[in-house]
Each structure stands twice: as structure tokens, then as C-alpha cells.
């Protein structure tokens, strides 16, 4: 920071005050601390999870260059460090969004109603692996996975069953589709069902995930579309939904699953933002105005164990996004510059050993998410390391959120940790490091390129190896696993939900569907879609048309694989 510019800055402390503080610090360091403490401090061995140096004591001197109005500001005002809304949780507490999805859509319908009746204000709809990866329940690839870890969805009939007796104009549905290739189909099924029930388009609220990184990097799979194809479909989804469904978020840039696959907090945010930047560039190239899509871009963060760093990450990410949208893309609509995000607590931090300990871990992470100013929250369930959440465990998670909101008082004031020397220092550090990470990816030619050439996969694998070695050698402590181990509490018998009948139910439904539909129409829709794959046109209208005529998810995905070809996941030896 140059001397001249700092003169005009509204720094919190004057140069004179800082001088006194620095002297005081020196004095404290040299005459109050023991020699051991001093040695420890000089060795620099205390680092955050992402490697930011931590001092024994942070003082105003660490944030001397921070200008309150420019760098921190007010909630609902740039640079949004203190939150995206002026009245934050007083106006709108974070959405209590818990996962639902197990077995057949009919089973999920009961779970969704259960969660809504216990006070959840939104639901995350999870799918089984065949649905996530774009296979029908009766495709051979689906064998053994139908209805596990999420709901099986093959056609609009399933979406209709999933939301039976639920007013689609009243809820906000987060449709966790993962891949762009399924995001161009499943939300289309949702819109079709909503239209059939007479729900106006502007009442349909929700989010779909739609992230090409999920297809090509975070999740592996037997059949993967090439990164540039997946990215094209991602942009098709954003473009189409922004134009037609004003309250639906067409993309959730997924830092969460990246982090779970293996990154630190800096890379988690940096990669997701690099994806958002490339998406914005592509939509501008297609002729859209930045303010036509940016307000509907949303993000998804992980909330991991390093309490203060995670809070700093949340605060910093809002500032980085504001500056990109405002300074670089010239967004005029303030909403374009607001980074809104959903948070899920870190599944990867939970243990199979002594699973009830996970209630404590998740509660602490949930508190950090709240202090970070998230817009909606999912708290992981204690049985995470055993199965998708059982009903009891899901209720504890929901109750944890309600305890944070109703009992702790932390939601009564905006961004309560602002002004902490440590938190502001970390926030400043995170901003710089995220900026650098985004820059690094852009210098490589953008995120699609960084995926194509396997850089991102190597980055993740390298991080994981480092992290795991720290767990193996005890440097990173995991209670009950590598410290404070006990023999008796090792594991618990956790009731696992099983839906062995899902396959036969889905199969029977697909058989009925194939009899009920107009095969001639199906053929026509498929041929049009096939042809359009080889044009620059947005494919969304054609997949919508197809699902309306009862074309199945598996059929559309198979068509994409045929037309676009497959890509080999890096790291395979």
C-alpha cells in the first residue's frame, strides 16, 4: 500500500495509534512472552488449514491498511464483506435446507413432507447415482444403485410423484443435479410438471446445481462427456433458465464438492469463481447482458473445521465476487454483484468412529456458516459415514439449525465477527489468495482448459495426499480416530435405509410409461435433439419438448453420449 493512497483512506487506526500499538506489541513480545513462546512464534509453525500464518496475537497492526468503508463496509453495500442483505438474518434467516432423497420418488415425497412439517423452509432433492450420471433405473449400468443415496428419477412421472400434494409455487426446491447434462433435463421436468399444475413461471423458485466440474473432475464415472461439451450444456442451462424462469437459480458453482474431493479453502472458492468467470464470458459472447444472468448465479461452499478461516472465506468470497462483477464485467444491477451462497457442513470431516461426535462437529461448522453469513444451510447428519441421512439423524441436523437460529442469539446482528483483528486479517489474506488462484487458472487459459489437461485433477490428488499424510502422522488431529481413541465406542449400529423394491417399482413404471407415450412423437423429439447437438443452438427447448412427451432421462443422456462422444478421466493408470 503506497504512502499517498493510505493518506486518503479511512483506516481504522491513525498512524500515531499504530505506532503506539506496534511498540506495545514489541514490548509484550520481548518482555512478557517466555523464550519458548517466542521461539514457537518465530518458527511460524501455526498455520490455518490453507496455510495462512497465524500469530499468537493479532493486533490492529495486522489490519493497518484495511480501510473500513472500502474494504469492509456495510451489509447490503459493496463490497458486501459484511453480508448481502442490509438487515441480514433479522429480515430473512438462512433457509433451513435439509437433504431429502432415498428410494423411489414416492418415498421422498414422504420425507419432504416430514421435513417441511418440522419447519424446514426448503429442500435439497438428492438423486441416486444412476440419475446423477444419467441412466434410467432399468439400464444395465444402474444395477445395484437404484434408490441408494438418493431418489430414482427417470421421467416427469417421477418428478410429479416426488412433489405430490406439494404446492410448487410455495416452495424453493434445490434440485441437486450435479451434471449440466442432467440439469438440462431434470429441472425441465420440474418446470413441465409445474406448468401442468398451472403454477406460473415467475412463482417457480429453486436452484439446480449444473456444474461441469462435477462431471469432469469432482466426481468420476464410467462415461464422461468432454469438458467443453459439459461446459456448453452448463451455459445452455443458465441462458435458458435466466430468460424464462426469473426466480430459479440455474447454476450453483460448486465449491463444496470440490472441497470434499480435495482442496483447501482458497482453491475451493478460487476454482468455483474461475468457473463463474468463464461462464460469464461465454454468456456475454452469446449476446446476453451481464445483468441478465449474474443476479441468478449462486455458489455452494463447504464449511470445514478451521473455524475462523472458514468464516473469513465466506466474507472474502463476497468481496472477490463483487469486484469481479462490478469492476471487470461492469454489472449495473447491484444484485449482479451479490454473492449468495448455500453452505453444507463438511461431510469429509465426519467420522465413522463414534458417530455421535459428528453432531458436535456439524454444530460448530453450522455456527461458523451462520457467522459467515450464508443464505441457506444444510447441516450434515451424524450418520454421514454410514449412509444417506436416516430420519432421526436428519431431524437432529434440522434441530441443530433451529438451535442456532432460535437459542444462541447469533443471528441478531450482522456479521458479528467483523472488527476482530484476526478475522479481518484472515479475510484480507483470503481475498488476496483467492484472487491469485483465479488469476492462475485464467493464465492457464481458463478452467475448461485446466480440466482438459488434467491440471485440476493433479491439484486435487496432490492436496489429498498431503492432507492424508498429516492425518496418518497425527499432525492433523481427528478425535476418536488418531487422538483420544477408545475401544468401546468405536462404531455404532446405525440403521440404514434400504429400498430394495425401488428397482422393481421404477421398472414397472418405465414399462407403463413406454406403453403410454406416443412413440412417433418420441422419435421426432429425439431426432430434433440429435440434430441440434451439432449446432450452436441452445438445447434446453429441445430437451424440454422431449421430456414433455415422456422421453426419459436415460434416453436423452445416451443420445448425448452418442453425439458428443466420451472423455477419459485423467489419473487412470
Amino acid at each position: 500500500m503506497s504512502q499517498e493512497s493510505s493518506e486518503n483512506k479511512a483506516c481504522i487506526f491513525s498512524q500515531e495509534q499504530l505506532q503506539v500499538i506496534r511498540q506495545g506489541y514489541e514490548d509484550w513480545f520481548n518482555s512478557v512472552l517466555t523464550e519458548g513462546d517466542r521461539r514457537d512464534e518465530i518458527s511460524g509453525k501455526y498455520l490455518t488449514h490453507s496455510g495462512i500464518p497465524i500469530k499468537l496475537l493479532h493486533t490492529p497492526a495486522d489490519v493497518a491498511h484495511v480501510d473500513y468503508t472500502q474494504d469492509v463496509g456495510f451489509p447490503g453495500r459493496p463490497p458486501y464483506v459484511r453480508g448481502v442483505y442490509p438487515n441480514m438474518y433479522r429480515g430473512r434467516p438462512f433457509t433451513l435446507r435439509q437433504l431429502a432423497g432415498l428410494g423411489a420418488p414416492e418415498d421422498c415425497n414422504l420425507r419432504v413432507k416430514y421435513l417441511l412439517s418440522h419447519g424446514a423452509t426448503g429442500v435439497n432433492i438428492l438423486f441416486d447415482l444412476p440419475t446423477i450420471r444419467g441412466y434410467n433405473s432399468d439400464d444395465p449400468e444402474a444395477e445395484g444403485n437404484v434408490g441408494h443415496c438418493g431418489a430414482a428419477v427417470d421421467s416427469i412421472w417421477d418428478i410429479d410423484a416426488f412433489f405430490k400434494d406439494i404446492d410448487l409455487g410455495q416452495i424453493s426446491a434445490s434440485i441437486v443435479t450435479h451434471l449440466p447434462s442432467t440439469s438440462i433435463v431434470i429441472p425441465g421436468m420440474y418446470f413441465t410438471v409445474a406448468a401442468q399444475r398451472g403454477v406460473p413461471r415467475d412463482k417457480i423458485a429453486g436452484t439446480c446445481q449444473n456444474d461441469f466440474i462435477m462431471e469432469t473432475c469432482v466426481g468420476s464415472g464410467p462415461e464422461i462427456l468432454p469438458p467443453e461439451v459439459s461446459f456448453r450444456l452448463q451455459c445452455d442451462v443458465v441462458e435458458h433458465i435466466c430468460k424464462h424462469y426469473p426466480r430459479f437459480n440455474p447454476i450453483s458453482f460448486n465449491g463444496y464438492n470440490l472441497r470434499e474431493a480435495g482442496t483447501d479453502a482458497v482453491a475451493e472458492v478460487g476454482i468455483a469463481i474461475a468457473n463463474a468467470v468463464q461462464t460469464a464470458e461465454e454468456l456475454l459472447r452469446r449476446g446476453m447482458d451481464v445483468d441478465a444472468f449474474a443476479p441468478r448465479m449462486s455458489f455452494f461452499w463447504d464449511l470445514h473445521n478451521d473455524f475462523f478461516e472458514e468464516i473469513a472465506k465466506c466474507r472474502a468470497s463476497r468481496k472477490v465476487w463483487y469486484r469481479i462483477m462490478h469492476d471487470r464485467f461492469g454489472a449495473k444491477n447491484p444484485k449482479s454483484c451479490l454473492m449468495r451462497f448455500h453452505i453444507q457442513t463438511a461431510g469429509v470431516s465426519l467420522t465413522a468412529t463414534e458417530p455421535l461426535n459428528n453432531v458436535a462437529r456439524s454444530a460448530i461448522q453450522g455456527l461458523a456458516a451462520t457467522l459467515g453469513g450464508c443464505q441457506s444451510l444444510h447441516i450434515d447428519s451424524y450418520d454421514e459415514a454410514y449412509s444417506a441421512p436416516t430420519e432421526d439423524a436428519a431431524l437432529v441436523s434440522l434441530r441443530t439449525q433451529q438451535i442456532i437460529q432460535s437459542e444462541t442469539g447469533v443471528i441478531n446482528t450482522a456479521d458479528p465477527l467483523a472488527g476482530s483483528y484476526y478475522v479481518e486479517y484472515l479475510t484480507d489474506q483470503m481475498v488476496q489468495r483467492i484472487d491469485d488462484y483465479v488469476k492462475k487458472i485464467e493464465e492457464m487459459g481458463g478452467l475448461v482448459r485446466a480440466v482438459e489437461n488434467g491440471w485440476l485433477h493433479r491439484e486435487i490428488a496432490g492436496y489429498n495426499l498431503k492432507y492424508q499424510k498429516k492425518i496418518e502422522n497425527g499432525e492433523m488431529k481427528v478425535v476418536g480416530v488418531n487422538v483420544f481413541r477408545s475401544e468401546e465406542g468405536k462404531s455404532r449400529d446405525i440403521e440404514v435405509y434400504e429400498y430394495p423394491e425401488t428397482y422393481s417399482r421404477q421398472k414397472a413404471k418405465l414399462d407403463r410409461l413406454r406403453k403410454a407415450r406416443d412413440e412417433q412423437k418420441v422419435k421426432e423429439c429425439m431426432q430434433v435433439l440429435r440434430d441440434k447437438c451439432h449446432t450452436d443452438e441452445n438445447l434446453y427447448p429441445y430437451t424440454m419438448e422431449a421430456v414433455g412427451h415422456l422421453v426419459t432421462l436415460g434416453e436423452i443422456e445416451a443420445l448425448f453420449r452418442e453425439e458428443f462422444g466420451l472423455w477419459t478421466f485423467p489419473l487412470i493408470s
Partner: protein
Amino acid sequence: MSRPIKVVMAKLGLDIHWRGVYLVSQFLRDAGMDVVYIGNKFPEQIVEAAMQEDPDVVGLSTLGGNHLTLGLKTVTLLREAGMDRVKVFMGGVIPPKHIPQLLDGGVHKVYGPDTPMETIIRGINEAAGQ
């Protein structure tokens, strides 16, 4: 000198979580084993890879709930192909109550979350007779 222990590691079927399987592969490699990671594969393809690679151990990873179906199917297909010598290890998110069924079905060992790498390495060394 005997040849290093050879391990074929696979992600079972559609399961998307590759962090664990790739990590274990790296640790086994560092422990001196000859490791081939074949990515996401279905039972028939895993057996095919095993026929080509002639491993001592096949490691199957799943967090996707297909351990009882595709996991046991892989064991059966390996036996049918005459590869009785190959020991099958499984890892991932597997409910404890399913473990006896897997062991009865011919899986050699099942390692859940939190298992130290050392345990896995020792387990494979013992199983491969070294």
C-alpha cells in the same frame, strides 16, 4: 527377489467419490506395490482388467451403496473366471451390518472410513503372503 505385490484398484460402477480409492492407490504405491488404478468400472470390466493384469489383489471402492450387489458380483465373476487366488478387498462407506454378508460372499477384508493406511497396507501384505 520376488516381484512386488500387484493390485488392481477400481471404483465400483457409478460411484463418483474417487478421493479415497486414489489416495489408497498412492499409499500402496509408496509402500512398494505395483498398483493399477482403472477408474470407474462395472464387475465384468474389472474381471477383464484382472485377467490382463494378473494381480494378487483387487481393491474395490464404493461409497455408493452397491457393495452387496456389484461388489459380490465381482467376487463371483472372478471365481468363475478361475481367479480364485486373487484376494478382493473392499473400502468405502459400508454399513457394519453388511460386512458379514460381504465376507461370507468371498470378500477378503472390508475397510471402512477412518482406517489407517498402515492397516490397509499390512492387510494386503498379509493376504498376498509377504
